[in-house]
């Protein structure tokens, strides 16, 4: 087996070199991992591959300089003994050997440059050339570039030659030349211009008569004329960007151009874009610093020199390519077509310059300026005819240089009828004068009769009748006088000029106010413009009244609610909300039918303030609007609708005026009934009270002249016309209305008039009881007994004790009176029967004041409360008259609780006092 095996081995043919037999006990070498594989150059230095292009730079020894020892400077050579041969160091001195190698940055060995290498290598350039060929005016002219080919014959040419092709021949199978002298087919129509005879088919070339039959010729070397349809939308002759120049920059624009002159626009024959004049550096070859994705770095050393730029302004030379090139061409001396084309620019092929110019359009001269024209614009200010403006106006007029004597020159429309008539010189005729005598008489009679009738109707029920429209001036003034009689005191003061725009009117208004103040009713009509119609006068009078009233109201308590626009009276428009609310009656019926929803809902556009939106973190719903709140529209002030909705000028305005004025004004003002005023039960109750009170007061009136007699329902029922102060107090809230004043009780229950009102508080509080008990007996379900207003009562009392003056109305009371609208606050004590059980742990101030007066009070109380069975213990504890009052009418079982309550609140009060 061994022998056979050996013979087998001999027979075998072995290829390659056998592996070294593995030494015993030695392990297989691990393959060197990739990161540890190194390449060394000839000198044993590591080559690195991490560079960008040619394997990277090995900057010295392991990225140090030079050698293993590091950078060693060239040894110093003293120039004294031995002149160091000055060597100019070039860049090469700092380069490594690899840089001079074939792939270095400055290869020393000779290689074919691109210019002479096969053109196919340069794809970009080739493409550019192709494009240029296509776009060129003479298509295919780029083919001439190929005539001067590279010295190296390309493979294709070599192959062609080997196939028998010779230069100058066409490519293709050899053909027989036929005497194809065909006449043009007469059937074929030729459109357009006939070709010049020289260009017709087959005319080119040598026309040999001798044409042997069996001789074939090589096909003619025809440049295929590619007829390129115009596919773009450029103008004729427009070329767009020249790709070769655009791609290779301006440096490649001129070097060698075989086709100077006419064919200047053709692309460069050689296309040697590399060798430019600007290249001055000695090193040729590739340089670093070119992006990795670029194929070649063409001309990075190109320098911009001034010589490339025009230094002289000269006309655009025609013929340097068509307009549209970005890069300017170097101008050649081509003066051929320069002469005419200064202004029109390049002439396109096939166009001629017109021989005679068209006639120019007629030129119209500008209009001549006026002689005194000053080329400065001045603004004519708009000056209103106000008093305060007259100086300004004058100054402005002086400054503008036109001093007019008649500054009051008004437009025709600003005049009223009488002024116009004066200007026209007419004498006025009233309407009545146009009528006949008889008619006038009749009219007068009718008028008088009606007036009397009206007076008879109005006067007896004056207080209520305010809704009836004034039928004559007399009535109107009468009515108005009543309404604003007392307010006239300052109505006509000088600073208020509602009709300042119309001085005449303002004058009339002032006279009117003056006469009103003097109480001359009859003169009311004198002030009015006698030339106007009756209706106008009436209206004016009403206006004046209203103005007087308006002025009054402006300094009243409500002034904060109304902003007074300056001279608003003369503006004929008023702002009203754009969207009208639905009719309230309709809504009420809907509510009654419980049909909530659409019928009870109003929807308005509402513009929130921008800041509010920002604070709520909400985008502004109307970012571009400047309105805030509900949008408003302007309406005519005197439109019919506004007249319809202005029923009572007196109501709301006068209601809010201060009370002093009202107190002297005894006339009844129509008070707008607030819905808070009455529930039916209360009405009923009040009637009873008022009856009682008016009875009682009729007694009291004889002695009491104090103005603070409480308002009662009497004013409504007509019972109380006698007293002048009711109207004053009418505005006070219901609680006060329902409660008789101290004076009343004093009048009834005390005989001595020497008592001060301050001391009468006890009595008043106690004597209240009979009144309320009457009420209680009548209405059991009553909510708001008179006693419930105890806090107000106390206020009053305190006020009087403070001042010590018998006059009751103090500022505080007024404040209460003016403020009490809307739902009331629950009393500090519970209302109803039980309310008096609980002592009032009231404000500190009151308590202190009461304490001060305590002794006095108790004394008097002793005197007065003899008949009362309750003791004075509580008074000592609290000094509160309220306690007695409460205990007086409370039942025995509630007395205990009231005691305990008193204790606790007493503590609280002490606590308060301690503070």
């Amino acid at each position: 087996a061994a022998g056979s095996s050996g013979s087998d081995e001999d027979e075998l043919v072995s290829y390659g070199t056998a592996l070294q037999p593995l030494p015993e006990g030695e392990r297989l070498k691990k393959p060197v991992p990739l990161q540890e594989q190194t390449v060394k150059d000839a000198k044993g230095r590591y080559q690195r591959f991490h560079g960008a292009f040619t394997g990277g730079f090995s900057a010295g020894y392991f990225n140090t300089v030079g050698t293993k020892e590091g950078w060693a400077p060239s040894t110093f050579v003293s120039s004294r003994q031995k002149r160091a041969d000055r060597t100019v160091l070039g860049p090469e001195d700092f380069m490594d050997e690899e840089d001079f190698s074939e792939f270095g940055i400055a290869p020393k060995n000779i290689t074919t440059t691109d210019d002479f290498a096969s053109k196919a290598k340069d794809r970009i350039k080739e493409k550019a050339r192709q494009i240029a060929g296509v776009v060129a005016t003479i298509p295919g002219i780029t083919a001439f570039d190929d005539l001067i080919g590279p010295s190296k014959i390309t493979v294709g040419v070599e192959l062609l030659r080997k196939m028998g092709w010779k230069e100058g021949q066409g490519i293709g199978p050899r053909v027989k030349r036929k005497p194809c002298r065909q006449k043009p087919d007469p059937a074929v129509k030729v459109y357009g211009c006939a070709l010049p005879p020289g260009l017709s088919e087959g005319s080119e070339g040598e026309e040999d008569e001798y044409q042997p039959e069996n001789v074939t010729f090589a096909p003619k070397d025809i440049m295929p004329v590619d007829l390129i349809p115009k596919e773009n939308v450029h103008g004729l002759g427009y070329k767009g960007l020249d790709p070769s120049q655009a791609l290779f920059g301006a440096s490649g624009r001129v070097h060698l151009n075989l086709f100077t002159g006419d064919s200047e626009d053709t692309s460069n024959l050689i296309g040697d874009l590399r060798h430019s004049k600007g290249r001055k550096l000695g090193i040729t070859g590739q340089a670093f610093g070119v992006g990795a994705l670029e194929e070649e770095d063409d001309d990075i050393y190109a320098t911009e020199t001034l010589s490339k730029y025009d230094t002289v302004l000269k006309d655009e030379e025609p013929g340097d390519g068509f307009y549209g090139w970005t890069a300017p061409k170097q101008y050649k001396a081509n003066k051929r077509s320069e002469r005419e084309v200064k202004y029109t620019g390049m002439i396109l092929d096939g166009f001629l310059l017109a021989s005679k110019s068209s006639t120019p359009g007629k030129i119209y001269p500008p209009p001549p300026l006026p002689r005194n024209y000053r080329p400065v614009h001045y603004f004519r200010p708009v000056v209103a005819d106000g008093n305060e403006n007259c100086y300004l106006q004058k100054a402005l007029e002086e400054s503008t240089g036109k001093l007019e004597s008649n500054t009051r020159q008004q437009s025709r429309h600003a005049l009223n009828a009488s002024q116009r008539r004066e200007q026209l010189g007419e004498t006025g005729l009233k309407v009545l004068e146009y009528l006949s005598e008889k008619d006038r008489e009749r009219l007068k009679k009718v008028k008088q009769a009606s007036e009397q009738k009206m007076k008879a109707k109005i006067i007896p029920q004056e207080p209520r009748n305010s809704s009836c429209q004034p039928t004559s001036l007399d009535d109107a003034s009468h009515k108005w006088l009543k309404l604003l009689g007392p307010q006239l005191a300052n109505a006509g003061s000088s600073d208020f000029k509602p009709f300042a725009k119309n001085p005449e009117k303002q004058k009339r208004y002032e006279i009117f106010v003056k006469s009103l103040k003097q109480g001359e009713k009859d003169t009311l009509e004198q002030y009015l413009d006698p030339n106007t119609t009756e209706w106008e006068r009436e209206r004016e009078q009403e206006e004046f009244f209203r103005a007087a009233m308006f002025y009054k109201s402006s300094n009243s308590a409500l002034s904060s609610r109304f902003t007074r626009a300056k001279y608003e009276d003369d503006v004929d428009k008023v702002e009203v909300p754009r969207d009208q609310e639905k009719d309230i009656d309709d809504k009420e019926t809907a509510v009654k039918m419980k049909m909530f929803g659409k019928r009870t809902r109003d929807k308005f556009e509402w513009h929130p303030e921008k800041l509010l939106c920002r604070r709520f973190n909400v985008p502004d719903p109307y970012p571009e609007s400047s309105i805030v709140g509900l949008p408003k529209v302007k309406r005519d002030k005197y439109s019919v609708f506004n007249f319809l909705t202005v029923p009572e000028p007196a109501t709301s305005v006068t209601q809010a005026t201060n009370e002093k004025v009202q107190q002297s004004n005894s006339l009844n003002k129509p008070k707008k009934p607030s819905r808070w005023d009455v529930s039916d039960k209360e009405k009923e109750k009040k009637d009873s009270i008022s009856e009682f009170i008016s009875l009682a007061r009729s007694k009291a009136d004889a002695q009491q002249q104090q103005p603070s007699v409480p308002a009662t329902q009497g004013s409504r029922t007509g019972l109380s016309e006698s007293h002048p102060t009711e109207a004053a107090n009418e505005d006070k809230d219901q609680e006060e209305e329902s409660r008789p004043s101290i004076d009343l009780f004093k009048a009834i229950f005390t005989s001595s008039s020497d008592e001060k009102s301050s001391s009468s508080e006890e009595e008043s509080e106690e004597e209240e009881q009979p009144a309320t008990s009457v009420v209680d007996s009548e209405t059991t379900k009553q909510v708001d007994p008179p006693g419930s207003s105890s806090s107000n009562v106390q206020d009053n009392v305190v006020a009087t004790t403070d001042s010590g003056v018998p006059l009751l109305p103090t500022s505080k009371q007024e404040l209460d009176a003016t403020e009490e609208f809307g739902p009331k606050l629950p009393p500090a004590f519970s209302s109803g029967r039980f309310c008096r059980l609980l002592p009032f742990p009231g404000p500190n101030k009151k308590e202190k004041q009461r304490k001060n007066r305590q002794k006095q009070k108790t004394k008097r109380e002793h005197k007065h409360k003899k008949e009362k069975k309750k003791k004075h213990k509580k008074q000592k504890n609290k000094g509160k008259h309220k306690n007695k009052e409460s205990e007086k009418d409370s039942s025995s079982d509630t007395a205990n609780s009231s005691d305990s309550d008193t204790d606790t609140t007493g503590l609280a009060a002490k606590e308060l006092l301690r503070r």
Partner: protein
Amino acid sequence: MAFPLPRPTRPELPQRRVRTLECGQGAVRAVRFNVDGNYCLTCGSDKTLKLWNPHKGTALRSYQGHGYEVLDAAGSFDNSHLCSCGADKTVALWDVATGQVLRKYRGHAGKVNCVQFNEEATIIVSGSIDSTVRCWDCRSRRPDPVQLLDEAKDGVSSVKLSNQEILSGSVDGHVRRYDLRAGQLYCDYVGSPITCVCFSKDGQCTLAASLDSTLRLLDKDTGELLGEYKGHRSTTYRLDCVLSEQDTHVGCASEDGQVYFWDLVEGSLARSLPVGRGVVQSLSFHPTLPCLLAATEGQVQLWHKESFQEQ
């Protein structure tokens, strides 16, 4: 794996009086829980505003600075500020810790009935009997309101805010809802002077109490009537109404000294709490618990559910 939701418990109403605070500040005009319900504010007729822990019954602080009765108060979301308003026509912004008045907003022409913070306490909205609602800026020092809402024809008795709406109830019988995001004003007529308005917690409904002794639940979007609640007495005073913490019940104070609760859906009277003999002026419902504060006369009562255990 999701845990099963806890079994929904039957909503409970406050039934048991747990504590009574004697406030010692005159009549308590309003009582208000703070934002998390741990504290409360009482507005006294003696010009003071007091901060309490109602669950322990301790008075924490008294704020003095108003010139007349304090009528309403509210706390900011972070409990750092208070706002209050009063019959002295002013609105005040307080610092809780120092007790100082940071700002005082004057501008209302009458006493200020109600006041509210917005969500970030940057705006105070106040309603007054001068029939205006004014929005005051807390950030800047401008003395005039940011915006004046003067659409009401009569005094404004109640104002509530959601995060984008201002709800105001007015004595002219209208509930006005100013939607800032939509830029619309919705105006619902109820017919009777409104004493209190509320948003429901889900923001879909508004509750309006009016002086015809009726509470009405209105749909916010359409203004339709969803429910009507009667049985209490409210004819004269400005009384509060509340919604329970889960919107299950509607509550209202009454002039007969009771607090009434109705089932929101059925409209049936669910419970009445005998608070006192006087008028119950003000109510405040705890934001998360069935817990109610009721103010009557000079005291405030804390009501809890029946099963409430005091720690």
